[in-house]
């Protein structure tokens, strides 16, 4: 990290005034909150002689390094301070906002190093890693998504659109075909009006009637029939071609997004709600497909039609044409105004519908809670309020539409009135034939449609761009736990696990694990205990590499887990969670989830080992029993035992039990414990448990508190420490058990 920031000239001058010529500048950083708590710049300079703070109002504080014991930063809520410890007291140096926490995170080490150079203290503490800075867009200054170099605000819309057309590229000839069909259709739609004009002038109107009018009439009608047949055929072919293309594109898009989702790190799923991800896979891709295949073509066609008809009309009679186009600006203004207004109305409708859906998603699965608290009436009221809002905002759209649509029709008719009037006068004066007048009128109607379409275009582009960004956001999110280019095959794992000074943070500030080190030999059973939030689950998550350690290394059989192929690694780790999630399908499918090729004998064997065989055999459908969505048709204990069987199917060398028995009754717990006792033999086992009695058999217990290992030892050893945390936890549970017994 750069420790000397560029500095404005006047501040530089003021700073220079404070130093003497031979001082060596080491650090120069700006902070963004004044000591009085307002936003404003302060500067911190560290030289080989002193710490200097220069405030916005010109105040300067200079502390000779000789007096400094230590510098450290402290993050409060919404702001942080940099503190310097002097011999007698601690002084606040600077205040800064969370946006620049990262700047000061490595400062304490730099100062210690400077102090060490003075020969004052030894820099012994290993420096914690600097927190990664939130990157900002170079153009607009907005924060970038972590891991992304693309600014959603500044990404050029055209670029997004070009990227979209990549999805059409594999089918470009078909797309071109569809486009040509659309062109042909537009062209052929112009023909009937020509026929009509000719028919009027040469056959029907008495003055200009040709002698063989009857024959001509037949020819004209047959000709028209031919045109209509051709138009129907072309239209059919076009619908089919575009439909084909559209389905291909959406299929490719959805497949790509879903494939990608499967390989995204778990942290992505923590950040985005399920509903939103689902919307992106289904609706957003669909909207994109609609735009790619139809929207774009229609746009081009509209422009061509507009120019084409305009030219034809101008060539026929430029004066009449210009007059007929008088309402066009009105239309353009009206439509643009309408789209702008309606955009926000629609936005409001979508938002309210989303809120309505959220309410449903909340209360329907929670029906039991609603009933238990007898709050049906209130839920009805809440739904009603939201529903009424949806109705209100929809009515707003309806109101706007009731003005706009008839208004537009009215404007169009004004255009034809003008033609009737001035064109009619020309016909009466003999300057224009009846057929030409008819031609004008029909072309004029065809002229207004693309005008309106083009005005609506910006709306369409906007919505497609939004969808595109949301889809591409997924595709652009780097798989956080990425395999190296050439991951090592772990082979058959022995099960030796070692943590070397491992730290972990989800968000870059709070450390869930802090400098954790321990080593486990193959086959050992390790119990992990500690209060909630101590980092127990995080610790085991690092072993299966659901997340990567922020700092330090996790070694498996001596190699860092980052070097190992993830899937081969996880295949040898069996995981049993507190809330076992089963997938729709039969019990056999679920047990064999990690090893689809498992033979039936193996499935029965692991089910038996998990004490599940007996109850499964008494289901009407045995192992073929459908478990329902998320295993809903089974009880908690049944699900848990099936999930244990599932963990065993691949004969894992490492077993992770994350609160595996805490959500079941005592009898079931006994059965599960019995099964587990059998299973851990020969496997490295990590067991997290709240009920400490279940960990008696552990070879060693790791006691975690606030991300650090505070005690290690066997159950007996830890019990014998009267002041220990483990002893305290055990005492508390004994007390609880006694109270329950009373």
């Amino acid at each position: 990290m750069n420790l000397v920031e560029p500095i404005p000239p006047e501040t530089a001058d003021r700073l220079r005034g404070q130093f003497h010529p031979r001082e060596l500048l080491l650090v120069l950083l700006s902070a963004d909150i004044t000591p009085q708590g307002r936003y404003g710049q302060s500067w911190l300079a560290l030289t080989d002689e002193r710490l200097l703070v220069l405030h916005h109002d010109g105040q300067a504080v200079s502390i000779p390094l000789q007096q400094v014991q230590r510098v450290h930063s402290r993050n409060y809520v919404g702001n942080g301070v940099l503190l310097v410890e002097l011999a007698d007291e601690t002084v606040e140096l600077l205040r800064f906002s969370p946006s620049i926490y990262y700047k000061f995170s490595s400062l304490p080490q730099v100062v210690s190093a400077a102090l060490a150079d003075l020969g004052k203290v030894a820099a012994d503490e290993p420096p914690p890693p600097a927190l990664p800075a939130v990157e900002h867009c170079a153009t607009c200054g907005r924060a970038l998504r972590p891991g992304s170099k693309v600014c959603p605000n500044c990404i050029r819309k055209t670029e997004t659109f070009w990227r979209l057309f990549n999805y059409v590229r594999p089918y470009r000839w078909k797309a071109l075909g569809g486009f040509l069909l659309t062109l042909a259709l537009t062209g052929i739609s112009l023909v009937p009006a020509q026929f009509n004009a000719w028919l009027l002038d040469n056959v029907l109107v008495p003055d200009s009637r040709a002698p063989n009018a009857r024959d001509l009439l037949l020819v004209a009608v047959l000709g028209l029939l031919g045109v209509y047949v051709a138009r129907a055929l072309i239209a059919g072919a076009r619908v089919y071609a575009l439909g084909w293309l559209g389905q291909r594109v959406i299929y490719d898009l959805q497949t790509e997004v879903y494939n990608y989702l499967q390989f995204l790190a778990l942290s992505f799923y923590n950040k985005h709600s399920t509903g939103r991800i689902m919307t992106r896979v289904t609706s957003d891709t669909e909207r994109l497909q609609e735009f790619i295949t139809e929207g774009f073509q229609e746009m081009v066609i509209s422009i061509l039609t507009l120019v084409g008809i305009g030219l034809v009309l101008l060539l026929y009679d430029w004066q009449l044409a210009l007059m007929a186009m008088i309402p066009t600006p009105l239309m353009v203004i009206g439509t643009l105004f309408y789209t702008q207004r309606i955009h926000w109305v629609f936005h409001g409708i979508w938002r309210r519908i989303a809120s309505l859906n959220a309410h449903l998603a909340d209360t329907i699965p929670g029906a039991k809670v609603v009933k238990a608290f007898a709050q049906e009436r209130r839920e009805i009221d809440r739904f009603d309020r939201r529903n009424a809002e949806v109705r209100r905002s929809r009515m707003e759209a309806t109101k706007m539409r009731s003005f706009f649509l008839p208004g537009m029709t009215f404007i169009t008719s004004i255009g034809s009135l003008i033609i009737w009037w001035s064109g009619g006068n020309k016909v009466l004066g003999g300057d224009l034939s009846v057929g030409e007048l008819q031609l004008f009128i029909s072309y004029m109607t065809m002229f207004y449609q693309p005008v309106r379409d083009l005005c609506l275009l910006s709306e369409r582009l906007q919505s497609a761009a939004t969808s595109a960004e949301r889809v591409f956001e997924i595709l652009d999110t780097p798989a956080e736990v990425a395999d190296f280019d050439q991951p090592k095959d772990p082979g058959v794992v022995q099960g030796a696990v070692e943590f070397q000074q491992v730290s972990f943070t989800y968000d870059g500030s709070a450390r869930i694990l802090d400098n954790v080190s321990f080593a486990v030999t193959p086959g050992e059973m390790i119990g992990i205990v500690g209060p909630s939030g101590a980092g127990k689950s995080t610790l085991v998550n690092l072993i299966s590499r659901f997340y990567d350690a922020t700092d330090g290394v996790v070694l498996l059989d001596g190699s860092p887990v980052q070097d190992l192929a993830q899937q081969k690694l996880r295949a040898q780790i069996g995981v049993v969670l507190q809330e076992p999630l089963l997938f729709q399908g039969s019990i056999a499918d679920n047990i064999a989830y990690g090893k689809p090729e498992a033979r039936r004998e193996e499935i029965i064997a692991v089910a038996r080992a998990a004490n599940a065989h007996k109850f499964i055999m008494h289901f009407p459908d045995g192992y073929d029993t459908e478990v329902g969505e998320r295993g809903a048709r089974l009880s908690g204990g049944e699900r848990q035992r099936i999930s244990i069987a599932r963990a065993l199917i691949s004969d894992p060398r490492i077993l992770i039990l994350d609160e595996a028995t805490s959500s079941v009754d005592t009898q079931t717990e006994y059965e599960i414990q019995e099964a587990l006792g059998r299973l851990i033999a020969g496997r490295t086992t990590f067991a997290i448990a709240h009920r400490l009695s279940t960990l008696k058999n552990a070879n060693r217990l790791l006691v975690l508190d606030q991300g650090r290992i505070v005690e290690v030892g066997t159950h007996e050893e830890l019990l014998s420490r009267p002041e220990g945390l483990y002893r305290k936890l055990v005492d508390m549970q004994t007390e609880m058990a006694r109270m329950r017994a009373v």
Partner: protein
Amino acid sequence: MEDRGHNYADHLLDPGQLRFARSVRGNLVVQVGGQEHQGVEVRRAFPLEAADRYIGFFLADGAELGLLENPALLDAQSQQLLREELDKIYFRPVITQIHEIGEEFGVVFMEVETSRGPRRLEIRGIRTSIRPFSWYRALVEDVDGNRYELRDWHLLPRVTREILGL
């Protein structure tokens, strides 16, 4: 398979040691290596996907007698008796013909011919009540909990399949 202390092999019944007979009252008697058991419960492990293999036996007190992997290795009479017993426990007529089918308000009704005689059934919620499994078969459960088997559903007329959600 490697022994992981699951004792899968310990629970296997040797078809050579296993015989079935009928008591005077017609109940099934299971003989395992000279020992006789009555009131044995017989269960299929995979009633749908492998109905003829992996048969579990449980004693009256709930304890497991063992698992028979392949009944085809039994003597002919025992095979016959076992088949009868299983047919009794797992009553699942096969729908052989659909005379009439329709759907109203989410309830599917059918006039059918089954392997056990004609039947009229109503099915609610096809998504959960009609469950396809391998070889184009499907398990059909009607509103009363009767179970039927549908075979070769891919050969049914298009509209019938649409109604059944297959």
